[in-house]
């Protein structure tokens, strides 16, 4: 059993039709309910729910405060490599992009870490492309070993791995894995991932199952908005979330909301997602699930990020570099995408605190196990 069985019970076109046929009356009825089901979530992400966005935001705000208090968790990504054997039409690291490739050495990793630590971070997200020969499991494990003593909490966003490989990394001190399906539309997925291991839709789809079986602490889910209709993709993401919560009940979950950003060899979004759409989606997730972590990256604009901490977001990054060595070791290497909010960590901290929230740097201890 895996998510694939659940996934196969749904049809993209049917869901799309259902979401776009929701009436205003149905939205109003759902918002009267105390508990929001997956079916209600579908109603809340519909175009019909748009006029209700303020009341959704208020409810999201109060639910988030009830569960998470007045706090925002800080994290920062560290790109280890831009080598990649996949073709992803939307990604700066795509194999066919003629860019200089770079994988950090031990000395470079430690130099980056020094800088990141000096900014105050204790939770780190390691990111790579997919190049199994140079940046395989042993490289990732080595990187975790190298930095484990310096961070309370280590996450990765790398190629999907097998269960035993995850088990190896977890015992090395790995806390969380972020693995986004990009899109749950199988045909569209194939178009954007024509080559490389990533072109295997099913293997990627069942990655969170392998993580759950490996006993990971946290799994991050999401879809890359712009490839397909964000509403249908978000319904599938929520379906995935609910399935995983029921099956791997000891694991925590987080959702991210990446929208396509400009990068070298860029792709224009097929389906646009406006700021208001994104707010609606964030609030719908919170109404569906009081406990799920909602994460916001520097892909979004200053104004948007200033406001989103009241809307249900629980963790954010700052001053991210999306190129290997971007902080200090090799600032000129090619980035995965351009970030939007370029403010410093200190500025973000001030922004958050001025809105009455505490900035949390450390919320884990990786030396218990």
């Amino acid at each position, binding site marked *: 059993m895996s998510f694939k069985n659940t996934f196969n019970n749904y049809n993209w076109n049917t869901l799309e039709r259902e979401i776009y046929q929701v009436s205003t009356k149905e939205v109003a009825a759902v918002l*009267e*309910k105390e508990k929001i089901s997956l079916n209600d979530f579908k109603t809340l992400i519909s175009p019909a729910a748009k006029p209700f966005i*303020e009341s959704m935001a208020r409810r999201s705000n109060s639910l988030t405060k009830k569960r998470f208090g007045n706090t925002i968790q800080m994290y920062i990504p560290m790109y280890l490599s831009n080598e990649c054997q996949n073709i992803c039409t939307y990604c700066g690291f795509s194999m066919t992009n003629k860019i200089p490739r770079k994988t950090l050495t031990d000395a470079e990793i430690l130099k980056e870490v020094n800088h990141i630590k000096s900014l105050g971070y204790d939770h780190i997200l390691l990111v790579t492309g997919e190049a199994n020969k140079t940046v395989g499991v042993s490289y990732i494990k080595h990187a975790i070993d190298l930095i484990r003593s310096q961070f309370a909490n280590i996450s990765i966003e790398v190629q999907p791995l097998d269960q035993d490989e995850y088990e190896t990394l977890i015992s090395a001190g790995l806390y969380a894995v972020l693995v986004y399906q990009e899109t749950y539309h199988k045909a569209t997925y194939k178009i954007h991932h024509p080559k490389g291991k990533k072109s295997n839709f099913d293997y990627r789809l069942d990655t969170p199952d392998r993580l759950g079986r490996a006993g990971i602490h946290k799994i991050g889910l999401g879809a890359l908005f712009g490839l397909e209709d964000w509403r249908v993709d978000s319904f599938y993401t929520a379906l995935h979330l609910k399935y995983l919560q029921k099956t791997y009940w000891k694991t925590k979950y987080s959702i991210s909301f990446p929208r396509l950003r400009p990068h070298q060899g860029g792709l224009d979004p097929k389906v646009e997602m406006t700021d208001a759409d994104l*707010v609606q989606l964030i609030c719908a997730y919170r109404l569906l699930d009081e406990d799920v972590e909602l994460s916001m990256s520097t892909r979004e604009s200053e104004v948007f990020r200033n*406001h989103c901490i009241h809307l249900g977001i629980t963790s954010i990054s700052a001053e991210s570099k999306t190129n290997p060595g971007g902080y200090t070791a090799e600032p000129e290497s090619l980035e995965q995408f351009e970030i939007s909010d370029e403010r410093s960590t200190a500025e973000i901290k001030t922004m958050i605190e001025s809105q009455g929230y505490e900035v949390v740097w450390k919320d884990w201890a990786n030396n218990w196990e």
Partner: protein
Amino acid sequence: MKDILKIADKTFNSRLFTGTGKFSSPQNMKDAILASKSELVTVALKRVDIENESDDMLTHLKAKHINLLPNTSGVRTAKEAIFASQLAREALKTNWIKLEIHPDPKYLLPDPIETLKAAEELVRLGFVVMPYIHADPVLCKRLEEVGVQCVMPLGAPIGSNKGIKTLEFLEIIIDQSNVPVIVDAGIGAPSHAAFAMELGADAVLVNTAIAVSQNPVQMGMAFKQAVEAGRLAYNAKLAPVKNHAEASSPLTSFLNN
């Protein structure tokens, strides 16, 4: 669509499970159980004379639609429960067992540690295990992991007739469970049973409230109707309790700029 409950390889038209204890006579028990239309009836192994084919209780439960569910009431440890289950399987020709381990003779509260231990072993031995437990969501997930076919959390102490006192925890269990959730113990009135069904319980088990009523036959019918009503209401989705958001300064007006 027919709303059928399935546990292991059996299907049930009725979501009311009953028991055999505390009735004033075997005939009285039989009449009440037939009136309730219950299809799963639990029998304490300790009450049955398994050597005797014409045991009074068993001969009164011969109706075709009634499945017997032996229970281990009286045992105090996993070891005793496993032994009792094997006896029951042999005597009653069923591999279904309602696992009850309550070392405490006063409140008859189930021992979670012994229950988990016994459940794991009984599943391994090929039993369909239905464990009677506290309304403990983590214990339910642990039991699910060792392969039980349903969980039976209590609504209140057994025989207390106090109703659904474990509401908050039952809601979590129902929300999380991948196996049927049967609310067992504490249900003292048809309204309690209907409430449990409205919450989304897959079935309820009622014994004392029927057996000790002044008219067990009528009470059996009342519970039947209550369970059906509660289930229908759950399927039909209850109308919402009004929720009012607190007023504050607008959170989304920045989108208009």
